């Protein structure tokens, strides 16, 4: 079952409905990676840039 973020697992009787905030809907840390809060594209772009540190042939120094 694939759900959109800010959506929930199936509600169980007597259980509180849980919601999961999307990762990009958070404020970036002061000393950490930067993206525009709420903008999924900017978050994905910085994640992909960060991933290049795993690629020594194209490594960027963070």
């Amino acid at each position, binding site marked *: *079952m*694939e759900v959109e973020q800010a959506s929930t697992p199936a509600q169980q009787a007597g259980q509180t409905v*849980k919601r*999961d905030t999307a*990762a990009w809907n958070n404020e970036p840390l002061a000393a950490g990676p930067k993206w525009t809060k709420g903008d999924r594209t900017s978050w994905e772009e910085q*994640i992909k840039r*960060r*991933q290049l540190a795993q690629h020594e042939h194209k490594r960027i120094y963070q």
Partner: protein
Amino acid sequence: MARMKFLCDTERCIECNGCVTACKNENEVPWGVNRRRVVTINDGVIGAEKSISVACMHCSDAPCMAVCPVDCFYKTTDGVVLHDKDLCIGCGYCFYACPFGAPQFPQAGAFGLRGKMDKCTFCAGGPEADKSDAEFKKYGRNRLAEGKLPACAEMCSTKALLGGDGDVIADIYRERVARRGSKGAEAWGWGSAYGQPPKGAGGAAPAAPAGGKS
């Protein structure tokens, strides 16, 4: 659209367990729970040892999600498979279903008492509020909400363990395999799965790298 995956390059893994340590430290995983572990085959056989770091693979069609009787699993739009510990009843079905042994249970009590299932979250936390204490206590660190990648992949000493967007992983792995002359792809190919001898033993050519699959 990012689709989060792991891939462990068996040609590079040196069984340092740095990924295991990083995960345990970052998420304060309790004793007895091994969200990530390194499996070595042909241990002690010189030249034939292969190690691979295994945790939840965040399957596109997750069997754990399919068998859960209380439907506590969900998948984020990035493809990360997570679960809600408040709904989990500790039945263990997901453990039986998972081909990687990813679900872990903190207790081994009487009458099959297991406790709430715990597993690798791709450092994406859980349904509690992002970066909250409640989320950290239950699910560990939410590094994706901080714009980071899982601790295991970022800490890998040889960059054997790749973690992040599947397309980028595929590019990285494809370039590595091409640079070292197709070495390593045979561990993932159809030839290995269906009994053809590996390349170099007079067998079939290795299949495409795993990153090409969904």
